[in-house]
């Protein structure tokens, strides 16, 4: 494996923007002024739905697309305007883009031989060994499995020791078994080689699993940039809360109310109120909020108490070790999902009590979608 011995390869995007002009219409902002620093050796996951601007961002970094405005800096040097092949950025594409008439080895060494680089064969062999495809070097791509093709594509990208490695939906064409194995190998490989890497994906599992940090993207802007735990446990807004997590987070619209004793309540319906207790930093009395809580963070009690939220069982789905309970929140038309043990007994129509884990209860401003930072303060506060 080629040792890395080179200057610091951080990647910086500054107010990066790409607009597409359409005759007679307002310009479309595919990427709208994003700022990002990917540290040397870091793997950043660019996660978002199709059309969010993540592929355009990747293409601009690779030099396949020029930004409308803003800057891209690799190792401190602006690469905007530089031809793609001089940027030392390698891309492993979703569709592999291998040359069918060439052998695996020729595919891997293609770029190097074009540049007349030395040791191409030996380096190809080293990389192939690292990726477990050394026995395929003399084969043509046609006969390979999807997982093998993906490894060849990856080998071709990293054999050049790029400053920045771009991975475009690298696992999307693999079947479930190959995807798991390849994902783990990719993670290990990136850790060991330490390439500064940007991974573009629409698959949150992939992003959570692989990335040191995740940039969740929508409508050409970053919604949240943070670690997997950060994005999962402290989503910055409603989009992130809804997009990340499987099963998805319950998002329940309601209104904040201050009780006579100063404690705060999230009213989700006439008879459905979540007592938040005395809080710090929450929103205002009367504010329209959306309460977010993940299905794992709700406890179901067969007998409701004054402290639990009444709900009726809509459906129960046993799944492997876990079960998924869908409930109607009493007195509202809101439905929510709770993750339970797989052999729970739940009769449709039955009323149960729900207890929310307050430490894992999120509040969002319904109007802006932004997260409202709050913490329950168990001890009474002095004013």
């Amino acid at each position: 494996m080629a040792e890395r011995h080179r200057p610091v390869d951080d990647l910086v995007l500054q107010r990066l923007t790409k607009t597409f002009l359409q005759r007679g219409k307002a310009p479309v902002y595919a990427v709208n002024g994003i700022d990002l620093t990917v540290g040397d050796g870091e793997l950043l996951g660019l996660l978002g739905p199709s059309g969010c601007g993540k592929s355009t961002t990747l293409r601009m970094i690779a030099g396949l697309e020029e930004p409308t405005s803003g800057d891209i800096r690799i190792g401190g040097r602006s690469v905007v305007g530089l031809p793609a092949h001089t940027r030392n950025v390698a891309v492993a594409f979703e569709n592999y883009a291998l040359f069918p008439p060439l052998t695996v080895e020729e595919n891997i060494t293609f770029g190097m031989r074009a540049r007349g680089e030395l040791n191409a064969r030996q380096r190809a062999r080293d990389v192939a060994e690292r990726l477990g495809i050394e026995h395929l070097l003399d084969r043509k791509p046609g006969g390979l499995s999807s997982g093998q093709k993906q490894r060849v594509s990856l080998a071709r990208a990293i054999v050049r020791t790029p400053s920045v490695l771009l991975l475009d939906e690298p696992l999307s064409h693999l079947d479930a078994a190959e995807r798991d194995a390849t994902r783990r190998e990719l993670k290990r490989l990136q850790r060991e080689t330490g390439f500064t890497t940007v991974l573009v994906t629409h698959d949150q599992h992939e992003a959570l699993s692989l990335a040191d940090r995740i940039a969740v993207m929508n409508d050409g802007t970053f919604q949240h940039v943070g670690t997997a735990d950060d994005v999962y446990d402290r989503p910055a807004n409603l989009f992130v809360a809804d997009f990340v997590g499987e099963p998805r987070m319950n998002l329940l619209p309601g209104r904040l109310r201050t009780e006579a004793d100063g404690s705060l309540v999230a009213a989700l319906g006439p008879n459905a109120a979540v007592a938040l207790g005395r809080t710090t930093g929450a929103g205002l009395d009367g504010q329209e909020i959306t309460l977010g809580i993940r299905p794992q963070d709700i406890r179901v009690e067969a007998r409701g108490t004054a402290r639990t939220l009444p709900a009726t069982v809509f459906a129960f789905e046993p799944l492997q070790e876990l079960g998924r309970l869908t409930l109607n929140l009493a007195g509202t038309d809101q439905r929510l999902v709770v993750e339970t043990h797989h052999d729970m007994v739940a009769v449709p129509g039955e009323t149960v009590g729900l207890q929310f884990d307050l430490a894992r209860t999120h509040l969002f401003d319904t109007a802006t979608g932004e997260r409202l930072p709050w913490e329950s303060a168990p001890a009474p506060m002095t004013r």
Partner: protein
Amino acid sequence: MALRGVRKEYGKTVALAGLDLEVADGEFFVLLGPSGAGKTTTLKCVAGLETPTAGRVEIGGRDVTEVEPNARRVAMAFENYALYPQETVYDNIAFPLRSKRYAQPPDVARALITQVAGTLGIGHLLERMPRELSGGQRQRVALARVMVRPADVLLLDEPLSHLDAKLRATMRAELKSLGELQHTTSLYVTHDYLEALALGDRIAILRDGKLVQVGSREELWRTPVNTFVATAFGQPRINLLRGVIARENDDTLFATEDGVVRLSLGRRDLAPGTAVELGLRPRDLLLGEMPGMATLRGQVYVVEPLGRQREVTVQIGGQRVALVTPQEDVVPDSLVTISAPPDRLLLFNAETGARMSAVGDDVPGDATAGIAAHG
């Protein structure tokens, strides 16, 4: 509803190789398998859209193999929910009731349609045109159209496969709530194991036109007949550790070829030298050494955050084993011990893939007795 030795050939291709299947009255029965397994062909044989090359189809104890489709009292929803684009949602749902066979007085028909549409959450869309609906809404209209027909058997061909993952999960719960309301004998085809687990009273696994296993979710999960069934369920997938049966003194062992793993199996009926695969479900495994459990030692290969939990892959000799843990302090390259509850170990013949009965099967009462760690 029953299939008796149903065989279907297309020229030289055998789509169904003699299927025997019984679906009890009111049962929600799921056919699970990869594409090309023969799931849809089975449905079509029941619906009467295909005539079996050999064998019989029975509904309510009556042989309907030669009966016309529209005389079978079978309703079928297809994967491609073909709606009439120029008709309203109401008229689309009402369509089956226009035929003489299912004709109802107008007010009865209206009440039925309103009720079914309400159950499916599309009551407010009845005056809309199909093009104004989302994919999920169209799916529900197609389902409603099937459900208004008086049918003895409901056939559902991948009804959720066109939906995105989030809507699919929602609609699955909808179907589940309906299934329990309806108690209609149903045959449901899918390639999604979560749908099969969530919905099926019983599940049949189909492969290459043959039944591999029929059973409850528990049976398929805990006692799969072979590695095909074992790997059909679960994310992350079951770990299959390759090894051989070895004999040591009076003990029968599972041993990996590199000798890194040696587990006592406490059984005498296994021939030494047999190539086997040890099946370990990622969520059955625990990090750390637990008393009475089978243990494996290895080095952490990668740690992947998975929402609230971590997926940890451990290198054990030349093989890898994945497990899911809430533990947050697992570090790559660290040495760890994995504990496996002995009654959860599955042993398969590596050549045939067939399960060699659960490891603890022959030690009733104390399933842990035969298992000792030789890590």
